[in-house]
């Protein structure tokens, strides 16, 4: 029924070179560029989509994976509605670092209830033949860390990219539903992101 568009901020985190920028570009412009520069700091693109008959503007924030860009990217974690933890299936170290990325996000985004925050895990570059991370291994990590949905994607051949973002949106909307129930129904929703205003420590 409702046609109101809401803006959802989704952030891509993960080691440098796992393909975060490529995933974003594939999803928004349906293009793949093998010669992208390293991302410096953060970048973002907007995409309008309809999920379960709700109009949503997805704002996808792509971040720099390299450690030296840390101070540039972390201020932009705040206000995220969903975090896409990304690794590359041909780079085991990037998989091992997922936990660190999650910690970094929770710390800088100032997430109030980390266990309820919607994370989605993406194993990118499934088009590559020499895998270092098996699907089972990845699924197990997701299971153990909070039952996160896991998608194996390829920005190069567009495998699962759209599906993953749609899932992210569903997660956010579902999380919102739960919050909305706590509020009287005919009020204006001003506090979609109350956590950013919450005091830390």
């Amino acid at each position, binding site marked *: 029924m409702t046609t109101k568009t809401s803006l959802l901020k989704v952030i891509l985190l993960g080691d440098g070179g796992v393909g975060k920028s490529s995933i974003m570009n594939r999803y928004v412009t349906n*293009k793949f560029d093998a010669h992208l520069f390293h991302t410096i700091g953060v970048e973002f*693109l907007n995409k309008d989509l309809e999920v379960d008959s709700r109009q949503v503007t997805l704002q996808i924030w*792509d971040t720099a994976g390299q450690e030296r860009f840390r101070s540039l990217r972390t201020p932009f974690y705040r206000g995220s509605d969903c975090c896409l933890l990304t690794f590359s299936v041909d780079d085991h170290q990037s998989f091992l670092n997922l936990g660190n990325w999650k910690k970094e996000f929770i710390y800088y985004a100032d997430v109030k209830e980390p266990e309820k925050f919607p994370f989605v895990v993406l194993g990118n570059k499934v088009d590559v033949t020499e895998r270092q991370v098996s699907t089972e291994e990845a699924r197990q990590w997701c299971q153990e860390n909070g039952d996160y949905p896991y998608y194996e994607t390829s920005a190069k051949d567009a495998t699962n990219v759209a599906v993953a973002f749609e899932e992210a949106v569903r997660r956010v909307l579902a999380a919102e539903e739960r919050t909305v129930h706590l509020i009287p129904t005919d009020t204006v929703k001003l506090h979609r992101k109350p956590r950013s205003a919450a005091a830390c420590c």
Partner: protein
Amino acid sequence: MAELILPDSRRCHYFFLYDGSKVRGEDDPTRKGICYFYPEETPLDKQDLLCSQLAGVGRCVSELSSSQVSTLRLRRCKFAIRMKDDFFWALGCSVDTPTVSVCELLHQLINLFCFYNGPVRMSYELNSRETLAARWTCFLSHLLSAQSPLHYIFSCLRTMDLTNVDPLLLLKAALILQACQRCPLVLAGCIIFKGRVVSTQLSPELTMKVMVHEREMYNKAQRTNGTSAPGSFGCAVSSTGVFLTPPELQHLRSPPVNKDSSSHSSSQKDALPRRSRLSRTLSDTPSSEPEPSDPTSPHSSQKLSVHPHWSELDNSVFSPTPTQSAAGSTTCSPRAQRPSSSQRRNSHKAEEETLHKFYYQSFHDSTRGVSQIEGEESSTCEGNLHLNGGDGACETEFDFSGPSANVKTVSGDNEACCRSTKDHMTEVKHLTLPHPHTLESNEQSSLIAMTLYVHRVNSLVLALLVEPHFLNDTASIEEVYHSSLASLNGLEAHLHTISPAAPEPAGQYLFAHYDCIQNTLTTNVSGRAVGALEHPFVRATSLLHSHFCSTETLQEAIIRSAGTAVYGTRNVAQETFFQQLGGPPRNSGIPNHQDSAFSLPSKARHRLLKHGVNLL
């Protein structure tokens, strides 16, 4: 306070464009020839009077001397003059304004007009006077709305305050521009944030021109949108036709390798015998030696032999055979259009000391000139005569990096001489601007149409100079748009979060550092309204800058009043000005080693290091 701010708000007293071809007959009213007059509310009679007087004097003098007029002085007003075909431009500023700045302002204004409208004659045939008047007003207001009075003095670009910006973001901006260049139809571009340059691949002159469109679009958007809601990510792409001069275009199209080699000519220049430090004692050994940097001290012989720019200048101007000049231009014509500011300023010679004089130079007279400097000027005049004769083929005539041998001989053999006449009202200066004024005015007829592509993301703007058929090439447009959009969004977000620099603790010192190559200024004098504290510094800087421009051998100078002293130093690439505030000045009236002014150079060196200014 009020009288301190007032002169800044009216930096330009008059500006007009007069078309002599409209006033031929005895009965033709002057106003028929007035294409544009600023301020527009000036009574018509006064407009008539000024236009006819200045145009008349200008024409008379140029005909008598067979060379162009560059500045005229009328009472308390200093006019920069440009004459081209039947057009006559005059821009009047207060006499306090350095002559270089006035001439540069007019130069920029005309260039700006031609950049967006094409050749003047053509644009007046295609458009109504009202339409073009609005454009002149727009360009003028853009040029006059400098960040600070200091920016106005140096006619420099508005840049981001880089002290607060992470260098990685500058790298990001540079990479965005490079990524756009992967499309072969994109020549080069720049990135601007809130009206200030973040990164540019264009020459300072071209960057300045490009920024005007950006600001106009922004103002327009502000007017129509009112206040845009924060957080809404409004993006807009627009484009407009622009006109480049052949050297500008050649420089943009030449592959980076050639650009390097052309900029190499500047390093070769640096490798030429450097000017000996005439005033070594001032900054190096603070001693009791009397003011060594006195600009009037006679160093004329040294001046001729050691000055790299003059030698080049004279050489190019005196090259008698077209073949020689043409050969030179093939190697370095890209540079010809963008001479370094110091070169540009060489041409404006000392003027302050000759106020209240009417003088002009003619090479038909055989008496030696008033001073060495004016002798130099007249030699430049002859060069221009030569240039004007070769109308149309002008770009081939300039060779700024040619060998600089025998300059002394050239000057010595020069039969051109000067004559000075006294008059109490007007001062006339001859064309001492061999370039780029003449150069570009001759090129107006051969301007090349290109396209300016502008992509705005809130306060951030990507401006690209592209081939005209870029706009018909949907694939290219999409490529450029999509390859830059995410990064622009991100860069905007980053720059947006940068908090303005914390104000400097007041009362320590004031400084201004001007980069002549990039045409940028670093200073801790902030704001448009200069307070009483900064006013002496701004005035002294203006005066010192003027002296530096007019006296090429001058490297360091101190200007002082009873209460304070301002130190200025310069080299080929930069000028730096410094004033220590507070502390009792020890000033006995005559120079002695206890004088606090002599500690200024070392103080400047130490204090400015943290601003990234290295005077060592």
